């Protein structure tokens, strides 16, 4: 398994290289330089700035030196926050975003799986329709709509929960986590219902019934494992989605996390910040895809043995 993981990590290197190169090219092919944006800057100031950020050198040199820096783990200085490096900015926003993402993921997986499995146990009854209608609402109610509505209801009208911030007032983490997690909970509910229905129609579930096993053993031991395979496979993409969703949620709730930094960087045309964050996000996403792949393989004995056999 370790060897397999290492192999996959090696495969990720060219992918990352492509990501870095594409991002670099994109940023540097932007019409107008990074400092020509808003206000007219005096020519000498501009030249000084460009020298400071190596922008006066040929493109390929910039590229090579950037690659070297990235390899060393240095994502360069920020354009818009002089004196601060991209690394510092990411480090300052990461814990908040990670915490938000974790809570949202917990909301998504727990509520999603619970609803999906409940629905699959009695298909086409009320026990199916109620959670699945809720899931449909969750899917059709994107976070940027759900968030403001929750704020409107629970924050402004009922005044139960704080409307913004992170970690300052007790309870201010509830609304952001729910806003971010709901859409994915809904998706996971549909996936796990579908997966469970598929598995519950399998012959081996009939065998388990014929053996006289109690229902909770049939569901919990025999069905869940196969039924949740689609959910496990979805965890990787879901992570990427959560990252994107954090842009919106952090903007709505004014949370000082990575997502808000990124959106601000995009508005400010803070090129090194965009470049650095993209590389960072891509690495994270590739890592999480790998993890969710490995989890899916580990859950399937046949694949597990194949991987083991190949590694030997």
């Amino acid at each position: 398994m370790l060897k397999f993981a290492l192999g996959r990590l090696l495969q990720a290197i060219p992918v990352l290289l492509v990501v870095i190169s594409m991002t670099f090219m994109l940023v540097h092919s932007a019409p107008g330089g990074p400092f020509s944006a808003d206000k007219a800057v005096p020519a000498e100031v501009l030249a000084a700035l460009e020298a400071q950020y190596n922008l006066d050198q040929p493109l390929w040199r910039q590229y090579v030196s950037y690659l070297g820096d990235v390899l060393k783990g240095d994502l360069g200085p920020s354009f818009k926050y002089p004196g601060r490096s991209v690394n510092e900015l990411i480090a300052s926003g990461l814990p908040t975003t990670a915490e938000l993402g974790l809570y949202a993921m917990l909301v998504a997986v727990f509520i999603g799986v619970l609803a999906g499995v409940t629905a699959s146990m009695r298909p086409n009854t009320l026990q199916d329709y109620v959670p699945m209608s809720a899931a449909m609402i969750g899917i059709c109610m994107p976070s940027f709509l759900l968030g403001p509505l929750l704020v409107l209801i629970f924050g402004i009208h009922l005044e139960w929960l704080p409307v913004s911030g992170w970690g300052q007032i007790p309870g201010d983490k509830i609304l952001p986590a729910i806003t971010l997690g709901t859409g994915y909970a809904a998706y996971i509910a549909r996936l796990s219902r579908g997966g469970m229905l598929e598995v519950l129609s399998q012959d081996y579930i009939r065998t388990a019934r014929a053996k006289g096993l109690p229902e909770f053993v049939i569901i919990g031991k025999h069905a869940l494992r196969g039924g949740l395979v689609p959910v496990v496979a979805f965890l990787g993409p879901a992570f990427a989605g959560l990252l994107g969703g954090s842009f919106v949620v952090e903007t709505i709730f004014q949370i000082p996390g990575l997502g808000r930094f990124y959106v601000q960087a995009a508005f400010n045309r803070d090129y090194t910040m965009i470049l650095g964050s993209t590389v960072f996000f891509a690495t994270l996403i590739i890592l999480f895809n790998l993890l969710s792949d490995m989890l899916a393989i580990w859950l399937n004995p046949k694949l597990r043995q194949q991987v083991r056999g190949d590694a030997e």
Partner: protein
Amino acid sequence: MSTEAGTPSIEKGSSLWRDAWIKLCKNHVALAGLGLLIFLCVVSLLTPWIAPYGYEQQDLLLGATPPSMQHWLGTDVFGRDMLTRIMWGGRVSLTVGFIATAVALAIGVVWGAVAGYIGGRVDMVMMRLVDILYALPFMIFIILLMVVFGRSMLLLFFAIGAVEWLTMARIVRGQVMSLRKQEFVEAAHSLGLPQWTIIRRHIIPNTLGPVIVYTTLTIPSVMLLEAFLSFLGLGIQPPQSSWGLLINYGVETMEEYPWLLIFPGIALSLTLFALNFLGDGLRDALDPRTAKD
């Protein structure tokens, strides 16, 4: 069993398409979705003629007013009619939804069909590439593209289309792969039919079902992506408008004028509902596994 006039002995068969249509007609929610969708499309097409007010028509003295007889859905802070703005916004949102999906459809179907039909090493390489692309952070790339090249509609179509084709390619490839192994395709080969005839007569009609279903389900996810970008201020650009952008404006003033958030939100959610329910209904109707009962 109905009989045709003149040849009373011939029994009329019922094709799978007809069976699927009958099944869809029994699914009232999906049918309602279809109806709503058609209604929205017609309204969007006719917006320039039927919108109650002009798109840019302001009434600064009026300002933001709640729904009334003159302005059914109220007005925004500039006194612009919300119904008109939502109708124009819907035009943009739906256009993005349909065109970007068409882009995804075109790339995905061709890519998946070629990989699935040729198979072997070509398939391995082509699908490996799809796997790799899957791992890329596309959302971030789209944002990057919009930032770097400015927010143009055309770019939005292609950027979103370029993301959404991956799943389509996988679905079509799986379908074609399994069809290629089916005995009726082998029978066509053993008749000596040319490749293109086999693809046209035997492969394409049998992949259409899943493609239709997935297309229906791609449109809402594309619209969602557009709304998401517009909400962040990275998608559609004023003076053009879309539902995502309207929601963005609505959020800014939701404490004082909640209807500016709620009505565009309802418009977007309802459309997504319609498309998702229709997609689910089509899936049930076209799924060969449910075809028998």
